[in-house]
């Protein structure tokens, strides 16, 4: 659904009219951006539910908590690299937002493309990790919670990649300006959210001993 919300045009008109009319509780936030923030709140709760299953399973399942016998240990180095990739992509995304706020659509194109590349790199790395781990969704409760948590995070990254593609496509067509680019703001917030969730996932699965 991120692509739906990201395609909101004309958000700044709303805030402009609001500023002129002065009037009631209208802050400068475009409605589409508020919509994206609310949607992200719901996604936070969704991941909260998944984290709850992870913690509950960890607390109640018998025996050692980790990959099943015979499988590899988790590759924390690879996960660390993926974390760096995603954090870097948040920076590139934000540079893109700052660029378009100054009216620099060429800058937006470059930074968005970079973010897209980093996002795809993250997904590729995640898939590679899955392929070498040696255990699956059906291999006990650790496998189930591991794949569910990282899998749904990956799905959200994929959604973000779709949103970034749309933003890039529209940026290539010149459809953003300094005063009218709410889709970029919305997608960037979504992307930062995805990054923050990954930090939580990484810390929980790889760092918490």
């Amino acid at each position, binding site marked *: *659904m991120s692509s*739906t919300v990201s395609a*909101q*045009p*004309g*958000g*700044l*008109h*709303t805030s402009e*009219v*609001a500023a*002129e*009319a002065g*009037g*009631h*509780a*209208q802050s400068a936030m*475009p*409605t*589409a951006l*508020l*919509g994206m923030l*609310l*949607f992200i*709140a*719901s*996604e936070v*709760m*969704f*991941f*909260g*539910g*998944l984290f*709850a*299953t992870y913690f*509950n*399973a960890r607390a*109640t*399942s*018998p*025996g050692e908590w980790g990959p099943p016998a015979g499988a590899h240990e988790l590759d924390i180095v690879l996960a660390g690299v993926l974390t760096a990739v995603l954090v870097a992509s948040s920076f590139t995304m934000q540079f893109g937002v700052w660029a378009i706020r100054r009216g620099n659509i060429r800058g937006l194109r470059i930074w968005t493309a970079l973010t897209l590349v980093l996002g795809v790199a993250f997904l590729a790395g995640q898939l590679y990790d899955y392929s070498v781990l040696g255990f*699956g*969704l*059906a291999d*006990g*409760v*650790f*496998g*189930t*919670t591991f794949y*569910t948590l990282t899998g*749904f995070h990956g799905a959200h990254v994929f959604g973000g990649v779709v949103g970034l593609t749309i933003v890039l496509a529209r940026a290539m067509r010149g459809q953003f300006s300094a005063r009218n680019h*709410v889709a970029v703001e919305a997608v960037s917030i979504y992307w930062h959210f995805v990054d923050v969730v990954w930090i939580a996932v990484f810390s929980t699965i790889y760092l918490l001993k």
Partner: protein
Amino acid sequence: MATTTLDPRAGTYRRSWVLDWLTTVDHKKIGILYILNSFIFFFAAGILALVIRSELAVPGLQFVDVATYNQAFTMHGTIMIFLFIVPVLAGFGNYIVPLMIGAPDMAFPRINALSFWLLPLGGGLIFSGYLFGGAAAEGWTGYAPLTAERYAPGVGTDLWIIGLTLVGTASILGAVNFIATIFKMRAPGMTLFRMPIFVWTILVTATLLLLATPVLTAGLIALFIDRNYGGSFFDPAVGGNPVLWQHIFWFFGHPEVYIVILPAMGVVSEIIPVFSRKPLFGYKAFVFATIGIGLLSFSVWAHHMFTTGQVLLPFFAFMTTLIAIPTGVKMFNWLATMWRGKITLATPMLFALGFVSMFLIGGISGVMLGQPPIDFHLQDTYFVVAHLHYVFFGGSVFGVFAAAYYWFPKMTGRKLNEPLGKVHFWMHFIGFNLAFFPMHQLGLSGMPRRIADYSPDAGWTIFNLVSTVGAFMIAASIVPFLINVVATLINGEPAGDDPWEANTLEWATSSPPPAHNFDRLPPIHSERPLFFLTHGHGHGPAAGRERDLVEEPEDDAERRGGAA
């Protein structure tokens, strides 16, 4: 209006009304679609209730086998909650909230339509289990391990999971829409503390939906993974935990019941002042009570799990008792509003008063159940069934019918017939109490819930028989309602803009409103803008019903129509 493409509505050709309703993004039409769709599911789930009550009237399995019975109570609960009561209140919210705040539509009209269409399709998926070997049959609460692949092998439970996920998504999108609309699209002068209480309850309800439904989605997905991809979330044999399902489900499930009741309370808070000719007593207290209920609702979920032995009893019992307080505040405010008012017992008011009295009983039985020593005896008995029907049905459904009678004139331009409405109310009220009051006694004497049959020596037969009579009376009471609706739609008395002499903005435009809702808005300086428009500011009543509409300057009339 948009003029870029050949706009069919410009009058070049008359669209088919099927296409019109299929493609509408108008919140008023979408609201009506929600209400119609919900009532269809209401009738379906009602028939299932009659199946249940017919089977339980006397001992012995006369009509259905146990498997069919299990599907009946599962689908009854699931459909009533997810496909009737929540959507119908959302439907009234959809129609009325933009009007009440002076907006031309919701913030995201196309997403609004998407939220609606997911409902019949998601509901269809849930229901289609009947066509494929049996619908879900593990109770609307779907406890693990009953729902595990091993014990519920059919596709019905999978369809239930997926259908509920679709319905949940619709709710989340709708919640985003309501919150954005209420915060961003109020007319000038309508501060938050001048909004009608109904809008406040929808706001808090939407927040609850936004934050609680995703947790259910997570749980449903986990269950689907367990059933289909070899997952181990809830299977103790491979390290999973069945009680985890209960935690996840009820963390959603408890806010869900407040989602069901708050809008109905909002409706009642609109109706009682109008039919008592007095302003609502304690507006601010109402707002804070509503917010308080919303916040507290996230802290009580484990009172559904007292008997697992795995939850902290004192904490949840305390929070459960605490949440009764803001509800009590509302009760006193409604009564205080009526005190020394000039009361008219029109049908909407009758249903509102029915709500107040029946919800009081349901609330009391709820506080009883919130005490662990009592709950240990009454968990999973008919006492719980009595409680939940007094709050869901005696509360929310009475609120729904109150809303239907109250806003029908606004939506259709015609007034429903009063005598028929009163017949409906009394049959409904008496039937309801006949059906559900005996269940308190049944629970106290130990009758478990979700059983298809019981022993003739248990002493439960007479109560069950009376309850079944009541259930059929409720069903019969729908007949005058349907006759009323259809006859009024075909040839009813015109209602005019403001048939009830009400206080809020939806009555300041025609019945039904034009597509853009308002040609001109009255000035808004209080929470009863229409009242002051009609009656002036204490300088004596305005002549007749003459409206003194202030000519708004052009700039102020520039609405933030449909945000970007």
